[in-house]
């Protein structure tokens, strides 16, 4: 006998993500989910973003890592609440994991939550977390061909940060090729070239984000 199901495979994840999205909206909290490879400068980008926006907004950070809490410690050292999620081997965050972290935070007091997903350009793309935007970070040393190798993450992202642009002269990075590949994949996403540790270019990215946080 044939049984028609027409059931989304990630139904449980998506339902929980929808609940989170409602909670975020109710408290006017904007949530941005950062996707990137290990070592691309996610934490440095978060620190630079905090620096740029902390005067205007109350910010919290949720750190997703397979193990350790080194990233959360760096954030807390800046006086910003940070919750560490250890996925224990899982290659991406799911909404059930995010919910446990969100439950620890006082949403009523927050304007912006920055989620640092597990360092991975593949798996996190298929999971809705209830976030307002997914933003990906690619760093120059990773190479200009990444949009061709990992199209999925470039497609689901609402904006693309190109980090470590100060190293461009050292690496043979073709910025025109990179930007045109990103535009083919995701014509609407703005590209923000930054050097997070130098504070270079951060202003433009931060003002793009700030505009959205104010509307949340």
């Amino acid at each position, binding site marked *: *006998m*044939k*049984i*028609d*199901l*027409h*059931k*989304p*495979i*990630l*139904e*449980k*994840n998506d339902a929980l993500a929808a609940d989170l999205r409602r909670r975020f909206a109710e408290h006017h909290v904007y949530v941005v989910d950062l996707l990137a490879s290990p070592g691309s400068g996610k934490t440095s980008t978060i620190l630079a973003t905090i620096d740029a926006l902390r005067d205007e907004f109350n910010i919290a950070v949720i750190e997703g890592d397979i193990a350790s809490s080194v990233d959360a410690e760096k954030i807390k050292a800046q006086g910003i609440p940070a919750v560490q999620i250890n996925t224990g081997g*899982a*290659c*991406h965050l*799911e909404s059930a994991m995010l919910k446990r972290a969100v439950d620890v935070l006082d949403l009523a007091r927050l304007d912006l939550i920055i989620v640092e997903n597990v360092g991975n350009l*593949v*798996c996190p*793309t*298929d*999971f809705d977390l209830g976030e307002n935007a997914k933003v990906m970070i690619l760093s120059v040393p990773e190479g200009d061909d990444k949009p*061709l190798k990992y*199209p*999925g993450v470039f*497609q689901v992202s609402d904006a693309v940060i190109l980090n470590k642009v100060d190293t461009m002269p050292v690496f043979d990075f073709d910025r025109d090729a990179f930007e045109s*590949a990103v*535009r*083919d*994949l*995701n*014509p*609407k996403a703005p590209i923000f070239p930054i050097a997070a540790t130098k504070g270079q270019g951060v202003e433009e990215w931060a003002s793009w984000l700030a505009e959205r946080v104010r509307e949340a």
Partner: protein
Amino acid sequence: MHEMGIISGVLDAVNASAADAGAERVLAVNLRVGRMTEAIEDALHFAFEALSEGTLSEGAELVIQMVEPRSLCLACGNEFDHDRFHRICPACGSYETSLVAGRELEIASIEVDLPDDDEQE
């Protein structure tokens, strides 16, 4: 390698539906998977074989229908097929396009063996 997680979700839903229907075993599971997702066909088959062991779905055939990407141009209304890499409208060149197909992760249907099926034969 998130296919394990995807398939464990599939098996939860499939085994529950099969049990609800009073099935003795699942013969086939039909999935629709969009080409724009990061789910790899081979890895899905591998995960299915590994995780279905000892469940109603053990030995069932996993049939995966890959769904090709399609987008709608928000500027000129043209709907067009495309590959994973190009989403600019071929008719008017606009960047303002919206994906209408290609991100599916869906259990379309299942085939089950009911005790009654044998009696009818």
